[in-house]
């Protein structure tokens, strides 16, 4: 699990709007929105190579346990991947 990675695929455009995020899947033409928490998750994934590293950073930032954060982050990644907004690799 330490090597699980998530990245935004080339067909997804990401734009920050204030503290939220708008994602556009250029293959389907469907827009998606992320609230503040989802935007923080996505930023952490962009800033760190693995989910494990991203969840450690988020856990520090939010003052919660690493295990709980990892679970939440992994669930977020799976839901995003189901919508074609993230690609998962490694793991």
């Amino acid at each position, binding site marked *: 699990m330490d090597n699980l990675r998530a990245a935004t695929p080339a*067909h997804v*455009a990401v*734009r920050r709007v*204030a503290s*939220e995020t*708008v994602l*556009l899947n250029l293959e389907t*033409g469907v*827009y998606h*929105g992320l609230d503040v928490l989802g935007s923080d998750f996505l930023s952490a994934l962009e800033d760190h190579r693995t989910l494990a590293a991203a969840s450690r950073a988020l856990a520090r930032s939010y003052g919660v346990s690493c295990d709980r954060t990892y679970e939440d982050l992994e669930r977020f990644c799976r839901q995003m991947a189901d919508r074609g907004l993230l690609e998962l690799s490694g793991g």
Partner: protein
Amino acid sequence: MWHASAFGLHISGSFPAPGLEELEEPGGQQRRRPTVLRIGSDKEIDRLAAGATGDRTLIDRSLAGTRMRITQEARGAYLILNEHYGCFRVSADGGEVICVPHELPAWYWQRFLVGQVLPLAALRHGLEPLHASAVELGGRALLCLGTSGAGKTCTALHLVARGAGFLADDVVAAEVGSEGVLAHPGAALASVDPGELERLATRSELGSWTRLGMMQGEVRLRARRAGPDAVVTNGLYVLVRDDDARELTVQPLPGNPVASLLGATFNAYVDDPQRLLVQLDVCTGLSEAAATRHVMVPRHAGPSEVADAILADAAALRR
């Protein structure tokens, strides 16, 4: 041949087009994309369509009893058939529009040209048309958005009566620029409720605007535009009528403004990645750079009060 600037386009044509042909010869600093308008024939449209295989029907529906069908040829051109107004062909790059109107007065069928066909040409040139009326105030554009009947036009004209410059009625072509999102002026045309026009005409320059005729219960006017150049947008006002509301309020738009802006865009059937990215950048750019306001309009409030509230809010923004 006349030349005009509207929707960010350098439009050329050789047939009578009130509200277009009298506009300024394009010039100045701003780049405009060339679009040639001409009158064609059914035979020409048939000939152009002949041999085109793989046409896609994008829209086929009746709206208020009028059938409209839009198809895209395999080569990329769009064919728009409107039972009421005629047939129009927009080239894939937006550079040529062939009009085959029914036998109607020019100002009458050109409402469809200005309201639907030219926005598609602008879109194919890389601009993003928005359903909005717009005025220029203090060198910046204010856009009024809202559903049909929300009062976009009347509010904009009341703002003009208070000294704002007229930019566009119903369609604004937007583009991301270096200083923000630019709002390109539309045609010098507006449609307004006759009663509202009477109230405005007695005490403003709107009284000198030429009346072209009556159409669908509204007066079609040849307007006087603020100028040909695009203006940076700094205010978006989404008008929402609510009969249960007690007072007129102007508040920051709740939620993510991008959703409201996407709802104001045109031509959802054009969904190639290039267009979608322009749409995304215009909507997020406006959300970031312009104040976005939700204007709750109660039953008792007319466009005059709405215009006053917007002016007060815009003045507070400038401070």
